[in-house]
């Protein structure tokens, strides 16, 4: 069941990765501040896909799902990105002063609020959190995949039980670590601002990005004869998952907006005000259309969820929407108004390249289907 990526695709991956790195390097030399902010977006984007994929693996085990078993390997491959995500983040650590206002100790000294937050928002603790979070994700990823790969040969059912238990431990860890990531890399950009829902908000985008990436790859594989046994029932389920999380994201985004708008407290509304001036209002409206309205109507019909063309289109669309969402979260701190240039377009290229290269690397070594999984047969027979 081992299949290699065609060398053409692999070459594209390497090319994109190369172009991305070039942009990365030039960006950091030309305008390090803008580059660093774009780096935050890129880092959150790759983290979404990486840790979202691990979440989907855990979800399958703990929910006892069978439909997703034949496609689980794609998630397992994508989860491997947690190992490289810290590398993507690395340059930012040399520019933290450009990104985070709270690292400026002079400013913190005269600001009562920031002084109060210092026990949490200080450099040492920030770095410790980053290291711990990624160590945990890598550990769980490694354990999940080790058991899953071992099962390919041994077909041992106990490994499934082990992974179910692992998933039970992982889910609370995931909830906390993802929230920490959202607070550290998104909320603390505006260190005065706060919102209890932001962790859930980032979570909704995370799952969407992971499902969308997996969906695109799975459909592409299927079309090129890699995962031939998948039926429309499987694709329908993927489409339904996308549709559900589109709604979930909109629900969370709307809740956050409505409550802040209605209560109208200046310390909270300032965050939305920044997203409503200097052209950012167009991005804000665009976000509603791109991240909710369009995918909602294009994925609503039953047939749409089984239409491979539509699914492919929507996965790319949703990945773009997630990027836009991250842009909307991060960039207003960089400058008032809309910033768009080659760097904004360039960084995602690096991530896409990275995903393809990662996929090529993993596919060479591992089976494309978890052939030893006891639920595989039920998964293949799955019908709506």
């Amino acid at each position, binding site marked *: 069941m081992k299949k290699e990526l065609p060398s053409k695709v692999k070459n594209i991956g390497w090319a994109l990765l190369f172009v991305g790195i070039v942009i990365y390097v030039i960006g950091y030399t030309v305008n390090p501040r803008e580059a660093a902010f774009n780096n935050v977006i890129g880092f959150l984007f790759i983290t979404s896909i990486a840790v979202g994929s691990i979440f989907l693996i855990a979800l399958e085990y703990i929910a006892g799902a069978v439909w997703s078993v034949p496609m689980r390997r794609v998630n397992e491959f994508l989860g491997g990105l947690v190992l490289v995500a810290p590398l993507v983040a690395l340059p930012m650590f040399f520019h933290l002063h450009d990104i985070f206002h709270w690292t400026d100790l002079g400013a913190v000294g005269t600001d009562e609020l920031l002084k109060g937050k210092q026990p949490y928002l200080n450099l040492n603790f920030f770095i410790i959190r980053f290291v711990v979070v990624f160590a945990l994700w890598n550990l769980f990823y490694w354990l999940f995949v080790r058991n899953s790969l071992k099962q390919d040969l041994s077909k041992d059912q106990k490994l*499934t039980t082990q992974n179910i238990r692992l998933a039970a431990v992982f889910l609370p860890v995931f909830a906390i670590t993802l929230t920490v990531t959202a607070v550290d890399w998104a909320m603390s950009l505006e260190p005065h601002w706060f919102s*209890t*829902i932001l962790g859930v908000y980032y979570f909704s985008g995370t799952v969407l990005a992971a499902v969308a990436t997996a969906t695109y790859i799975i459909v592409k594989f299927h079309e090129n004869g890699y995962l031939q046994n998948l039926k429309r029932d499987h694709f329908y389920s993927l489409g339904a998952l996308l549709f559900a999380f589109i709604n979930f994201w909109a629900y969370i985004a709307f*809740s956050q907006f409505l409550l*802040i708008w*209605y209560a109208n407290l200046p310390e909270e509304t300032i965050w939305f005000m920044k997203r409503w001036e200097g052209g950012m209002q167009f991005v804000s409206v665009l976000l509603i259309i791109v991240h909710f309205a369009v995918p909602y109507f294009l994925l609503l019909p039953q047939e749409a969820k089984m239409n491979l063309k539509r699914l492919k289109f929507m996965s790319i669309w949703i990945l773009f929407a997630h990027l836009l969402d991250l842009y909307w979260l991060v960039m207003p701190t960089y400058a008032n108004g809309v910033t768009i240039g080659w760097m904004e377009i360039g960084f995602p290229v690096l991530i896409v390249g990275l995903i393809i290269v990662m996929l090529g690397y993993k596919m060479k070594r591992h089976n494309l289907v978890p052939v030893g999984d*006891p639920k595989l047969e039920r998964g293949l027979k799955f019908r709506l």
Partner: protein
Amino acid sequence: MSTTVIDYTKELPVVEGRPTASQIEVVVTAPLDQFPPRKWWYAFAVTLSMLSIGGFCIGMSLYKGLGLWGVNQPVGWGFDIVNFVFWVGIGHAGTLISAILFLLRQRWRTGIARFAEAMTIFAVMCAGLFPLMHTGRQWLPMYLTPYPNQHGLWVNFTSPLLWDVFAVSTYFTVSLVFWYLGLIPDLATLRDRTTSKIKKTIYSIFSLGWRHSNRHWQHYERAYLILAGFATPLVLSVHTIVSFDFAVSVIPGWHTTIFPPYFVAGAVFSGFAMVQNVLIFVRQYFNLKHIITLDHLEKMNKVMVLTGSMVGYAYAMEFFIAWYSGSQFETFVFLNRALGPYSWAYWTMVSCNVIFPQLFWIKKIRRSIPAMFLIGITVNIGMWFERFVIVVTSLSRDFLPSSWGHYTPTLYDAGLFLGSFGLFFTLILIFVRVLPVVSISEVKAVVEGAQPSHH
């Protein structure tokens, strides 16, 4: 750790023991065909007494006014709002099970859906009682509906309290229609089975001429799917809007953005606890242990540990952000909850909602009837206290210490609360005697071997 090896290659049967279609009919309709036994009458007497106490308290409140209640300045929302939120929460499991689990194609829902839906309807009825009493002018509820009138009086469209009126009444209507739609094939079955003429007439009217024909089923399935699609956002919207009642205000401890998903998770949590508690008795007394199996109860317990943990996450996040925000009022409110005069309520809430349900991680406890029953009860106690903590602690001590107060419920508050339980269980006791507690037609379809096999 248990050493039993689970075979993942096989699907667990939804119904145990492969009963035949007629066996299912017989066991489900048995309670409808016989005169209620003595135990039922005892239970009925108890719940009816509770209901009359509630009725008495309502009467007194109408006659003498709301001064009989414990509400005061500054705690203007007391038991009435706490009970309202509590009952609406209970009413979340039913339509979640029947609509969302239907869309998620969870076949185990069939055994428990009917009962849970009935409980939803009864719980929403109990919930509706309290805001109506709370208005203090119970004879003017028509002004809650926006209609052009000669006084030029309009409702306040920007108030979430009004959105509540719309959300809850829509939810009630759709839940009722959904429940009734699912009942139609069963009513037809009852019509065909019964020998009493009166019953036959009643069932005939309400089964709307159902003949179990292929075409009927086709329309039915379509309608059911569409209604499930409609009901799904409704389930989430009701408690979302209930949470808006608090969260749009600027009261510390109320205004926090995580409230909507947190309230929905809490509602599902308490709803499942109540359904689990009542189903334990139902499966026991009506010999339905093979239809409402231990696996079903275990799955409900899993949902409870999930939603309970979500609620725990929200508590933690609220606490963290209260500190992180640097707002002294927010910080104070949360410290006051944990250490102030109502700390006993706060810690009851935390232990009942977050700590005890964690025991459900252990399989043995998840599958032990007495253990799950006890945890289910603590969950409902905890969820009631959660609303109490939110409503009372925030109002009793807000911005100005000179205008702080204390809330002590009166006997009338307690009586009304007791009365709502009386209403709820009275309705349940009547329901189990007049309608099938399990969907006969749906259960028939999930018995092993009943599904068409694909090749």
